């Protein structure tokens, strides 16, 4: 099963991905399923609105869309409650975006939601990269502190933390690398050092064009990595909570 590890569904500022357009793009790219995530505004403040939208959209296409959810840690216990509510209703991944949500990835503020996600057996996707609120080594801090959690380094720290991403991933077994923005021509090289079991293909549509990213990734990945990176690894994490 091929899975696109991260697509932003909805309309807001530069985001304009509709349900129909995503289905069409998945078909064109011959990709089976996609994790769908809310737009930035819903990551930052309107968590419940975004989480409900993801759940409702996925419920219309359960064989194609896998809903994620977000809960801004600044909401404190309310964030944990919202995470548990969303997961209880079907969300399979927690998305954190420290630059958009306003904290450092390894801040103690984040610990309760990461701990709750581990308890709920859903992986935590963290957008990483400049300006530095979320870096590969900050994710490693979380991975060490919460060894039961699965942490996904969204974008591999692209671009300016690319120096760190391989050695950081090698420092913690529960850290995975998501490809979007890292660019296929570099991502394949990272995986040769970390092992293909750490790789997750994500397009980050619509900021990247989904079919283009999949085409480029299929050109760049060694054939023996394809199954694991293009769906197998992520499926293993997502199915800790039950079959998809």
């Amino acid at each position, binding site marked *: 099963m091929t899975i696109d590890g991260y697509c932003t569904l909805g309309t807001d500022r*530069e985001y304009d991905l509709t349900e129909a357009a995503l289905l069409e793009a998945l078909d064109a790219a011959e990709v089976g399923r996609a994790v769908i995530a809310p737009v930035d505004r819903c990551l930052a403040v309107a968590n419940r609105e975004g989480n409900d939208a993801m759940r409702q959209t996925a419920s219309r296409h359960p064989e194609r869309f896998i809903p994620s959810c977000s809960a801004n840690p600044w909401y404190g216990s309310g964030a944990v409650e919202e995470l548990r509510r969303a997961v209880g209703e079907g969300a399979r991944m927690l998305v954190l975006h420290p*630059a958009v949500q306003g904290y450092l990835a390894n801040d103690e503020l984040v610990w309760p939601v990461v701990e709750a996600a581990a308890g709920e057996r859903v992986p935590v996707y963290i957008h990483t*990269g*400049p*300006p*530095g609120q979320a870096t590969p080594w900050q994710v490693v801090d979380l991975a060490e502190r919460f060894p039961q959690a699965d942490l996904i380094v969204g*974008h591999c720290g*692209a*671009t*300016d933390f690319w120096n760190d991403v391989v050695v950081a991933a090698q420092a913690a077994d529960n850290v995975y690398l998501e490809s979007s*923005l890292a*660019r*296929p*021509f*570099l991502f394949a*090289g990272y995986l040769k050092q970390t092992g293909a079991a750490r790789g997750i293909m994500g397009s*980050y549509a*619509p*900021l*990247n*064009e989904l079919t*283009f990213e999949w085409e*480029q990734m299929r*050109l760049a990945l060694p054939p023996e990595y394809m199954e694991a990176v293009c769906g197998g690894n992520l499926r293993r994490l997502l199915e800790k909570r039950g079959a998809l």
Partner: protein
Amino acid sequence: MIVDCHTHWGICWEDRDAGDPSAWLAVLDHHGVDAAFVMGHYNIHRLDRCTGDNDRLASLRDRVPERLWPFGSVWPQQGDEAVAEARRCLDDLGMRGLKFHPWIQGFSTADPVFGELCALAGERGRPVIFHDGTPCYSQPEQIAGLARRFPQTTFVLGHSGLLWSWRSALEAARQPNIWLCLCGPHMRGVEELCRRADGDRILWGSDFGFGWSDPIEYRLALLRAADVGADARERILGVNPARLLEGAAR
């Protein structure tokens, strides 16, 4: 006509090919790239190799002057020596401009000697290309500050803010002496920059040469697939690079 406005004669290439650009140029040939702004790597990575790398860039250019358009670098921390080396690059070696990577080279754009270098480039009518998109020394806003301070100098954001600062690059490009090089932003960022910035001040680049990976395939295909219009694409790839060099050398 396709001009790649952001390439490097990389350390790994120099260590293997010792000043012979044949294999490097073959990659450009493979992708149909006609010419390139070629910048150093040793010269922004090691102070002790800077002058030698500048000489090497000129030597590479001399082998294929119609295809390689070199940009030298210096280190402002060297004070008067840096200014002298910049003069040598522009006046003696015939460099097309200067290239700086303040993050790697470790200097602030507020450095007074760096101000002298910017003024010199403006006097000579040569553009100054930057790595940009990275705190704390290479933000688009900091380069826009230089553009305000040195209105006679043309500055190029070599990455258009990279992935997360394309909005900052767009703001910076309000300064009439700032150009953008599409070498880093995701496809939507490329589309928005082309839609909202002055299309006569946009370039394209790949960052080819910094390592062994080949980013030209991806970044050229991205520009071709982006919704930017055929006319704009043609200007970006072939017309604007020549305009930059001709205009800046006024």
